């Protein structure tokens, strides 16, 4: 049934429907509404789960390592500094092959202290071995969270579902919430491949010498590659039941496009609006929405962008000394093509600054009017700054 739900509430509904057994969390704006609702569900018996409050995000993920190792389905949510504090355990979870699902509400890192949206928190965790899926609206948040459990448990790697602060986490819109029995058909109760058992005691994650470590990492790499095909299969199953699918990427009017805008998160929706306007004026423009970031969908990106003359990647994040993270990854993916489009990297909307259709149009026109990017990263909408002496 369709209900008007906050993005955070859509996450909580998915977690309830997924029959999660242990949730641990430490509150941080803008993640708070997610865990408030889940803790309320646990307290009122709407979820048959144990909610473990903890004193820090590091402890939160450590608690889930214990719970998931014991063989139950687990969940947490965090943001920004909270995710950064989890960093050590993020590596642990993936290498221990624990299929934990987490929601990260993208929030800028401080200082300057800022609670608004910015993808640098999740993207700076790109090498931790977590699958990362970025969402555009409340419906996609609910659907992706449900799919995340299937995907994680299939390949034994953790999944991070990522959504923008406020523009998604605190936005109310109609969301179709499926029935429990339908979800149960898609996502049966958890049966772990391995778990700690006092009747059959053994040690998990012991010392591994150079003789075996590399093989363990290679196995993780294979699992990450497998996640790409598994995701497509899981989406097919989900679509058969619920009639919604998103794809690892979504290409909108890319076939005949000369310029393609590449986006992720809620900027995608606003770009769809601009695309309609520009197409109505006869502009040959396309849109590539990036949903999956890890594993990086190289083939799909090359297919969508390969025929374009120019590609404008819009990054709401920044890697200092390198550039926008999506731009870097897109460039690396396109390298395998014999003839490549010119890639323009734009930085916009950091720290929650609004990315309006006017800003997106400015990016489009700049790309159309110049043959080559003037710089590696073009920062959009910068104000003149007066420095103190």
């Amino acid at each position, binding site marked *: 049934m369709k209900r008007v739900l906050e993005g955070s509430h859509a996450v909580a509904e998915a977690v309830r429907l997924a029959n999660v057994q242990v949730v641990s969390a430490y509150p941080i704006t803008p993640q708070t509404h997610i865990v408030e609702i889940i803790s309320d569900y646990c307290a009122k018996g709407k979820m048959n789960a144990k909610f473990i409050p903890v004193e820090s995000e590091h402890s939160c993920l450590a608690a889930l390592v214990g719970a998931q190792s014991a063989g139950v389905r687990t969940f947490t949510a965090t943001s920004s500094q909270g995710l950064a504090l989890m960093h050590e355990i993020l590596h642990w979870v993936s290498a221990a092959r624990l299929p934990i699902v987490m929601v990260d509400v993208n929030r800028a890192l401080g200082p300057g202290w800022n609670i608004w949206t910015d993808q640098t928190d999740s993207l700076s965790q790109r090498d931790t071995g977590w699958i990362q899926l970025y969402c555009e609206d409340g419906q996609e948040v609910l659907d992706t969270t449900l799919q995340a459990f299937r995907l994680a448990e299939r390949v034994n790697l953790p999944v991070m579902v990522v959504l923008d602060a406020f*523009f998604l986490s605190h*936005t109310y*819109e109609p969301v179709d919430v499926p029935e429990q029995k339908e979800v149960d058909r898609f996502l049966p109760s958890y049966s772990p491949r391995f778990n700690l058992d006092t009747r059959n005691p053994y040690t998990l994650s012991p010392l591994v010498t150079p003789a075996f470590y590399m093989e363990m990492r290679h196995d993780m790499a294979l699992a990450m590659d497998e996640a790409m095909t598994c995701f497509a299969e899981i989406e097919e199953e989900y679509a058969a039941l619920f009639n919604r699918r998103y794809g690892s990427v979504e290409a909108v009017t890319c076939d005949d496009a000369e310029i393609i805008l590449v986006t992720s998160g809620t900027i995608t929706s606003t770009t*769809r609006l601009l695309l309609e306007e520009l197409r109505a004026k006869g502009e040959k423009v396309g849109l590539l929405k990036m949903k999956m970031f890890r594993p990086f969908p190289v083939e799909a990106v090359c297919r969508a962008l390969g025929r374009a003359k120019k590609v404008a990647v819009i990054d709401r994040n920044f890697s200092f000394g390198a550039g926008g993270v999506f731009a870097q990854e897109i460039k690396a993916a396109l390298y395998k093509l014999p003839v490549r489009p010119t890639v323009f990297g734009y930085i916009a909307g950091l720290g929650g600054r609004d990315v309006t259709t006017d800003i997106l149009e400015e990016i489009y026109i700049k790309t159309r009017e110049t043959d080559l990017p003037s710089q590696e990263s073009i920062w959009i909408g910068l104000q003149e700054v007066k420095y103190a002496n």
Partner: protein
Amino acid sequence: MIEIRFHGRGGQGTVVLTTLLAHGLFKAGYEVQSFPFFGVERRGAPVEAYLRLDKKKILARTNVTAPDHVVVQDQTLLNSIDVTKGLKPGGWILLNCSTPPSDMSRFGNNRVAIVDAGRIALKHKLGSRTSPIVNTAMMGAFARMMETPPMKDIIAAIREEVPSDPEANVAAAQEAYQEVVILGLITSEDKK
């Protein structure tokens, strides 16, 4: 698409007002989107929230800077904030006030409706004299001014979403629906 900006003060339920209206409008068949401008909230500090409605899926994911209409939950905001900033000509301004502002010139080329939501809220024992909870009364006034959503959808939204004393809130909404004063378009002759 219609875009509406809401002004209030922290603690007045401005964000809840936009959410409740989103529920009511969705029941009336609209696609809706509502969200707060999330600042550093404190009780009494100015708060902004937004509501979009359309007959098709809403794609804009930006703050509302050029609203079609404006709702002001607290008259004292008129002294500190330009509530008509970016407001489209002919757009409605719904103002909660006990007496109409003496100077209407700032509302030139816009349509105005006023309602004493504070008095109505207190009559139904919603909040206290110093901080009445006016948001459900504002819903009723909004429904009359906008001629949507129907009161049955306003009432259903309140009953489903307001945890504390929904019937008093329904009564406040119904009374405000009756009492709101539709002043209509403010022309140059009204400017003094």
